[in-house]
C-alpha cells in the first residue's frame, strides 16, 4: 500500500509538471493559435534567476522571487512588443506554420543563450518555499515541494478553466483564437489579449519553475525539455483547454509512475506517445479535434 501511495504522489508530482506547462501552452494557443515553445525557458529563468538573485546578489528569498518574476514579465512584454506585435499586428512577419512555431522557438534559443552566458552550465535550484524534511506517515513519504507543485498546478488549472468558462474576458480571449476578424468586429483588442496572456503564462511558468526547482534542479538547457512535455500535455487537451491539460497531465504522470514502479520505467515515453497517436487517430473527438470548424 505504501509503495502505491509513494508512486501515486510521485506520479502526481511529475504529472503536475506536465499539466501546468500544458496549461500555459494551451491557454495562449487558444488566444492566438501560436505555440509558446519558450514556456520551459521562462520556467528555467524563474528557477535559476531566483537562485542567482538569492545566492549571488544577496537578495532575500521573497525579494528574489519578486524581482525574478518582474524580469520574466518584462522579457515577455519586450518580446511581444519587438517581435509578435510587428508580426501579427502590423502584418510584417510570415504567417502560417512559421508563425505557429518559429517566433517562440527563436525566443527559446535566445533565452537559452542568455542563460548560459549569465548563469553558466551549473545545476541551480531555488530555495524551497516550504522548507523542511519530507512529510512521512509510516512508509509513505512526500516532499513538501512536491505538495506545493501539485497544489500550484491544480489551483492554476482551475483558475484558468474558470477564467475561460465564466468570465466575459475569458470568452473574449477564446473568441480571439476562434476568429481574429470576428473578435475585432465586436471591439475585442486581440493584441491586448495576446500580450497579457503571454506575459501571464510566462510569469506562471517562472513561478512554477521556482516551486519545482528544489525537486529537480535546473540548467540552462532545461527549457526545451519542459516545453516538449508541455506541448504533449497541451496536445492531449487539443491545445485549447488549460483545465483539461492539468487534469490529463496529472493522469499521465500517475500512469507513468505506476508503470515505472510495477513494470519498467523504460516504457514511459512509449506509453505517452502511443496513447497520443492512438487518440488522435481513433478518437480525435476526445481531444476536441473531431468537428470541422465552420
Amino acid at each position, binding site marked *: 500500500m505504501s509503495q502505491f501511495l509513494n508512486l501515486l504522489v510521485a506520479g502526481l508530482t511529475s504529472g503536475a509538471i506536465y499539466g501546468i506547462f500544458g496549461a500555459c501552452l494551451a491557454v495562449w494557443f487558444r488566444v492566438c493559435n501560436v505555440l509558446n515553445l519558450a514556456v520551459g525557458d521562462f520556467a528555467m529563468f524563474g528557477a535559476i534567476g531566483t537562485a542567482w538573485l538569492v545566492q549571488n546578489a544577496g537578495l532575500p528569498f521573497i525579494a528574489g522571487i519578486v524581482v525574478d518574476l518582474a524580469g520574466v514579465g518584462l522579457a515577455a512584454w519586450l518580446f511581444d512588443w519587438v517581435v509578435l506585435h510587428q508580426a501579427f499586428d502590423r502584418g510584417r512577419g510570415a504567417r502560417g506554420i512559421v508563425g505557429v512555431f518559429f517566433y517562440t522557438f527563436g525566443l527559446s534559443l535566445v533565452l537559452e543563450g542568455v542563460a548560459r552566458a549569465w548563469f553558466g552550465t551549473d545545476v541551480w535550484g531555488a530555495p524551497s518555499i516550504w522548507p523542511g524534511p519530507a512529510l512521512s506517515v509510516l512508509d509513505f513519504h512526500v516532499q513538501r515541494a512536491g505538495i506545493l507543485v501539485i497544489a500550484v498546478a491544480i489551483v492554476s488549472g482551475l483558475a484558468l478553466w474558470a477564467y475561460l468558462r465564466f468570465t466575459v474576458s475569458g470568452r473574449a480571449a477564446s473568441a480571439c483564437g476562434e476568429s481574429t476578424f470576428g473578435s475585432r468586429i*465586436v471591439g475585442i483588442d486581440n493584441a491586448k489579449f495576446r500580450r497579457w496572456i503571454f506575459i501571464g503564462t510566462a510569469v506562471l511558468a517562472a513561478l512554477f519553475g521556482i516551486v519545482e526547482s528544489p525537486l529537480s534542479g535546473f540548467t540552462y538547457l532545461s527549457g526545451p525539455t519542459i516545453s516538449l512535455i508541455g506541448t504533449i500535455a497541451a496536445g492531449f487537451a487539443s491545445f485549447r483547454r488549460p483545465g483539461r491539460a492539468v487534469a490529463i497531465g496529472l493522469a499521465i504522470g500517475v500512469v507513468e509512475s505506476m508503470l515505472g514502479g510495477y513494470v519498467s520505467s523504460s516504457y514511459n515515453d512509449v506509453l505517452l506517445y502511443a496513447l497520443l497517436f492512438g487518440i488522435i487517430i481513433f478518437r480525435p473527438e476526445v481531444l476536441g479535434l473531431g468537428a470541422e470548424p465552420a
Partner: protein
Amino acid sequence: MALEVADLSVSYGKFVAVESVTLSVAAGECVAVIGPNGHGKSSMVTAVAGLVRRGGTVRLFGNALPPGRADTAVRAGLILVPERRHLYPELPVRDNIMLGSYARTRRFGARAAWEDVSYVLDMFPELTRLLDQKAGTLSGGQQQMTALARAMAARPKVLLLDEPCLGLAEAVARRVYDWLREMTETDMTILLVEENPVHALMVADRSVRIYKGLVEVAGGRGDTA
C-alpha cells in the same frame, strides 16, 4: 448626419480597392450600397467599421472615428455584420451573442452581458433553443441569425450589413429581409451592401452604386439602376 464618409480610400498593397468614396447617411435612414462583386463594396464598409486601414475620414454623429480602430467604432455605436459572418465556431451561440456587447459590458461582467442576450432573443426567438449549440454546427441561416443577434447585442446606432442574404435559402433570406424592414421602421441607421439592387431597394430609402471602387450613381426607392 449619423454617418459621414469623405474621400475614403482603401488599398491592398498596390491594388486600390476603394477610391475617394464620399457618402452620408442620415439618422434613421437605410442606404443601400449596390454594385457588382469585386468593385469595393465590402472593402468600403470594412474600412468604415475600422477593420482595415484607410484614407479619408469617417464621422459618426459628427465625431471622427480613428482609422483602423474597430473597438472605438463599436464603442461609438457602429457595428458591422460581415459577409462571411465570422462567428466563433467552437463557442456556443450564447457566447457568440454575449460577445456582441463586449465593448459595453466588459467591465460589468457576465450578468450585464446576459441582459443583452435576453434583449436580442426577443428579436430572434428561433435562437433560444440553440443557445448551447456550437456556432460552427449551425446551418447557414442560423449562423446569419446569430451574426445579426451578435451585432444587435452591441445595441448599435449605426448598423453596417454586408450581403446579409448571400448563400441563404429563399425562405431564410425572406426572414432576414423581414427583420431588416422592421429595423428600418425604428430609429436605426443602416448601411446595407447588397449585390442585388432589387433586393436592396425593397428596404432601402435610397442607394449608391459603387463601380471600380468609385461611387458612380445614386437612386431612390423604386429605382433598380
